[in-house]
């Protein structure tokens, strides 16, 4: 009964989202919505592995690969994004495996894992900057305008098409999140995040499980990068790769709530609306203010509300919820030091 009600709510919500652009056509607001959906997808991709304690700061790198490989293949070799996007996803996946395998095989966890993945986004950023003859370096890069078939080039001029594409991609991300949530891997990964040795002793293949989730997360992030590139038609190393983008993903996911499916989406809504409000309200004077607010919020959230806004609100609404998972209980304790 509960399940049916929830499905119905999802169905109505989705129908409303699909219908929205046909009713309301303000291009600026649609543009914001498209950005929110694309970034939500990226944040959701991050949270798929982030929620299991696998905090990666390398996702900026995967996103950069998705965006740049797609654009470079189109400009230099004339490969349609329909081929370029899968190629870029494969490239990001390969990189994730190359970096992930030794990390997981040799038990690089916690600080070490974060710093290794930090190095990864650093590498991607430096490579993009260093190959400036092809990528335009820090000045940014623009995919060539398609002369012929728009669909083949995945370039559309109207916001409506992009809104529907972004909505589809976002929905795909949410579906994958739920799919992972219901899979056996979730239990394995939760066991791993609490105690690797115990999980291994209980028959969980620690390396394989972690690699699977990392691969999935990296490939989805690359897709987000490629879609972002196709939509914006302009990318710079700083907007799609590097440490700042990685931290932004972590931030949005944590603010929204890491342990609920719509948490990262909620985080994207908050962060993008905040940035846009500040930008419109203060104009060029606002440069930097949005990040200042982000940073303060991030620190406050981690100290006082580690489950994020949506996560905490949902907890409040459902006090009789099933026994929280151990690592969330830990998080709750952190919220109230001294209890």
């Amino acid at each position: 009964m509960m399940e049916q009600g929830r499905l119905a709510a999802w169905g109505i919500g989705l129908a409303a989202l699909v219908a929205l652009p046909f009713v309301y056509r303000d291009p600026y607001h649609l543009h914001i919505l498209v950005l929110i959906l694309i970034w939500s997808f990226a944040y959701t991709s991050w949270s798929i592995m982030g929620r299991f304690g696998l905090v990666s700061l390398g996702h900026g790198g995967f996103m950069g690969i998705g965006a740049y490989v797609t654009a470079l293949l189109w400009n230099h070799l004339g490969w349609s994004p329909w081929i370029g996007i899968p190629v870029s996803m494969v490239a990001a996946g390969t990189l994730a495996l190359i970096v992930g395998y030794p990390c997981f095989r040799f038990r690089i966890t916690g600080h070490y894992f974060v710093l290794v993945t930090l190095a990864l986004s650093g590498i991607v950023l430096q490579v993009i900057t260093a190959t400036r003859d092809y990528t335009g370096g820090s000045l940014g890069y623009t995919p060539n305008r398609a002369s012929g078939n728009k669909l083949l080039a995945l370039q559309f001029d109207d916001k409506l098409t992009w809104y529907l594409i972004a909505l589809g991609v976002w929905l795909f991300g949410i579906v994958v999140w739920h799919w992972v949530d219901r899979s056996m891997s979730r239990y394995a990964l939760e066991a791993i995040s609490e105690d690797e040795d115990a999980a291994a002793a209980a028959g969980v293949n620690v390396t394989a499980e972690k690699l699977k989730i990392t691969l999935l997360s990296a490939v989805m992030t690359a897709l987000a990068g490629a879609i972002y590139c196709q939509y914006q038609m302009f990318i710079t190393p700083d907007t799609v790769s590097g440490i700042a983008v990685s931290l932004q993903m972590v931030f949005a996911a944590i603010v929204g709530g890491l342990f609920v499916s719509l948490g990262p989406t909620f985080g994207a809504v908050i962060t993008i609306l905040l940035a846009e409000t500040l930008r419109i309200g203060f104009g060029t004077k606002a440069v930097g203010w949005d990040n200042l607010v982000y940073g303060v919020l991030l620190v406050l959230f981690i100290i006082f509300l580690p489950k994020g806004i949506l996560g905490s609100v949902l907890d409040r609404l459902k006090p009789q919820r099933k026994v929280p998972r151990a690592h969330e209980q830990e998080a709750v304790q952190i919220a109230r030091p001294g209890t």
Partner: protein
Amino acid sequence: MQGFLDIFDIYLLEAVINGILLGGVLALLALGLNLIFGVIDVTWICYAELVMIGMYAMYFMVQYYGLSYFVAAPFTVLLVAMLGAALHFLVIAPLLTAPPINQLLATGGVLFVLQSFATVAFGIDFRNLGIRLPVLAFGDMNFSYARLLSFLAALVGMVCVYLFMTRTFTGTAIRAISQDRQIMALMGVDTRRIYLITSAIGGGLAGLAACLLVLQYDVHPFVGLSFGPITFLICVLGGLGNFIGGFIAAFVFAEIISLGGLFSDLEWGYVLAFAFFIVMMFIRPAGLLARRR
């Protein structure tokens, strides 16, 4: 052909020596981070941003208030040391019992704050100290005086920290805490005080690094991103919390960057260093000096 080799060798030697000089500053940066990690078991993702703030402090004191470089430097060290202590008191202390990831992410938030604070307060212009130090010509090789000075100052700083850690009571307590966190409280050591002191020393080292880096590089709000990652890599490569490992790793990295930059652009030096790092993770995941189990 012979002539080509001659030139090549001189350049190579110059790059090697420049690498050593760069290594001194990197080692200083890594030392502060290693100290914090070794004692408090926290990674300050925002470490390079503290350096950036220190560089701005130097810039303003020297350019606006007309202080001499050597008068401004101790103030900068003091300021960043206080920032380090404040960071510990405000952000790390409430999270000491939290999972390590939370502490790390909280300092990530501080990174945002410091970076955008600098953007808001100082703008995104590149600023430099306006001090042009002479270039030392040695045979056919040229070395910047600033680099030599930084190298020497970094060495002196490290020796001071070494003496402090081995010859004073507080230093001994710091080293003891890095060996066993729980037991020291039972031995009558106030761990909170030691943590604060350690954070202040770590900040002070960042301040010293800032004084040296500002001689060579322009300061802008995002300058931290250019040497922050490399500092973390050095610490991981040396083994987090392992001072000697960090010291060696700093020079290994500096040589790779310097030699890589010799053959191509400087960015490729960085790319090579990053790639080397990932390869080393396969071979020695717990750091250069880790004992094989």
